[in-house]
């Protein structure tokens, strides 16, 4: 009798101790490519055209990615730990364009979701402040407002489409409660993100859309856009439309 009870209890012990983290997990890489006409950007030297006939070159291109989650066909969501989800993508630094996420439950996801910038409703929670040194080193911090620059592009342009020789800069972020430029991006794909098969996600940012995705931007109209309640939200909206996920075999 005692033996049977013992056996049952030991069995219960082994069953009841199995908790969630015995689920199979994997680490994955997300690779960001910033492109113009499907080509990599040539910083400083490349000259590109907007649909409004202006030409431009890019000296600096940076943005913050945050709040990453994966969504399954059945709607199930895996949210990556928010405090670990802040990343800075800097066109000039190749290593910054591949971000590694650990402990993702292995599954076939149909969508990936992420934020551009920092969700202000999170201030100061979830490690937002621990991203300060990274942002600071890359000049993605407005020190006068203790706030993050979400998206930054600087370069030269020419209104008439000639060799760019006038500076432009867009520094987009949130200011106060009435100017919130945090955006989320949701990418779905029919090929899915099946982490049982491969653990690489390719995301393309089609940079020219910054000037025409939703709003047509004529750089000459305002070549310095920072704290700007009219123009900054337009750039932020366009920026949220840059991204698409591309199947691995198309690379």
């Amino acid at each position, binding site marked *: 009798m005692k033996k049977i009870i013992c056996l049952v209890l030991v069995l*219960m*012990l082994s069953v*009841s101790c199995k908790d969630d983290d015995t689920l199979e997990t994997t680490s994955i890489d997300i690779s960001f490519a910033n492109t113009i006409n499907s080509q990599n950007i040539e910083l400083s030297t490349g000259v590109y055209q907007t649909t409004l006939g202006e030409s431009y070159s890019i000296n600096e291109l940076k943005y913050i990615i945050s709040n990453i989650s994966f969504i399954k066909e059945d709607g199930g969501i895996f949210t990556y730990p928010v405090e670990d989800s802040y990343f800075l993508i800097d066109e000039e630094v190749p290593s910054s364009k591949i971000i590694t996420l650990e402990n993702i439950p292995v599954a076939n996801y149909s969508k990936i979701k992420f934020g551009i910038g920092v969700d202000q409703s999170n*201030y100061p*929670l979830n490690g937002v*402040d621990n991203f300060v040194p990274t942002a600071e*080193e890359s000049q993605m911090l407005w020190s006068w407002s203790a706030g993050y620059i979400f998206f930054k592009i600087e370069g030269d342009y020419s209104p008439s489409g000639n060799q760019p020789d006038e500076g432009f800069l867009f520094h987009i972020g949130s200011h106060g409660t009435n100017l919130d430029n945090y955006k989320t991006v949701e990418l779905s794909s029919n090929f899915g993100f099946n982490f049982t098969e491969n653990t690489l996600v390719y995301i393309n940012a089609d940079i020219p859309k910054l000037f025409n995705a939703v709003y047509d931007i004529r750089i000459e109209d305002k070549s310095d856009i920072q704290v700007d309640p*009219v123009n900054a939200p337009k750039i932020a909206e366009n920026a949220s439309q840059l991204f698409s996920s591309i199947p691995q075999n198309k690379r």
Partner: protein
Amino acid sequence: MSKLILCMVLILCLACSGDETNYVEISENKILDFPQPDFFPQPVYNLEENPPTEKGFELGKKLFYDGKLSSTGVISCGFCHVQEFSFTHHTHEVSHGVDGALGTRNAQPLMNLAYLEEFSWDGAAQHLDAFSIIPITTDTEMNETVSNVINKLKSDEVYNELFAEAFNNGEVNTQNMFRALSQFMVMMVSADTKYDKVLEGNSVFSEEESAGQSLFEAKCASCHEGILFTDQSYRNNGLSIDLRYNDIGRERVTGLEEDKYKFKVPTLRNIMVSLPYMHDGRFQSLKEVLDHYDSGVESTQNLDPSLQQEISLGISLTEIEKNQLISFLKTLTDDNFLLDRRFSEF
């Protein structure tokens, strides 16, 4: 028999408790009682998210008074925020920081910060925990980088110990540094003035003070409202534009023309000791401030409508009324706070 089962169930329970028991509560680190005054609103600061603790407060205080937070190693927060002057930069119109570099604004008093929705004269910072980025990195203040400060703290044994004691994860990182500073600062509650004692029924105003109070309520309290003496809005109170700084105020934060020259309505608690006055410290005395409201208000862009109600701009005041107002404002000084050893450097 039943004992055996009990025993096994116990083992079962123990065996299955996971991470939770690995989390050891640092028993000596007591949570401090937040000194919520009876007549105050609920704090805006999330005290549950970052509850001030004994060790966190101690760490925050050390950071507050440590020149390490600046590039030259000598400018601490306490350099510009001096306790006996309600944590302002006494006698400095605009604060000066590293190597005597001049800023463009007057240091604000630090008290009752737990009740503020936004920070700085124009509301540039929305959370106290992030605020310190501004003084640390501003070239005319501490002219340092947050990364450097963290590195300096990491290589300091005393700080390593203090962070370990103050926070469960024990890490020397930005979040913990900011949280410690906030723990120190939110505990600075000032509500022990004659004015408060009168409210509580433990003191009475003199005739002069009473007259001042009535005047204040009629002419000033629409902006310097309520128990905190500010409605926390941004307004233009008619100061002439100082071309040296051409400070656009709130417009810097919102980008809106309609916010040009608006500044946060400041609290008037401890106003006797926090001179000089206004965002650029242009007035040296309360008399000068009242003269401004009486006869100095200028019709600059976005001047507050409430200062355009009388025949001439501003708020007309007789000399007698000015004295009465000053007598009332004097009842807003909290000596116990200004001398409270918990907040003092030494």
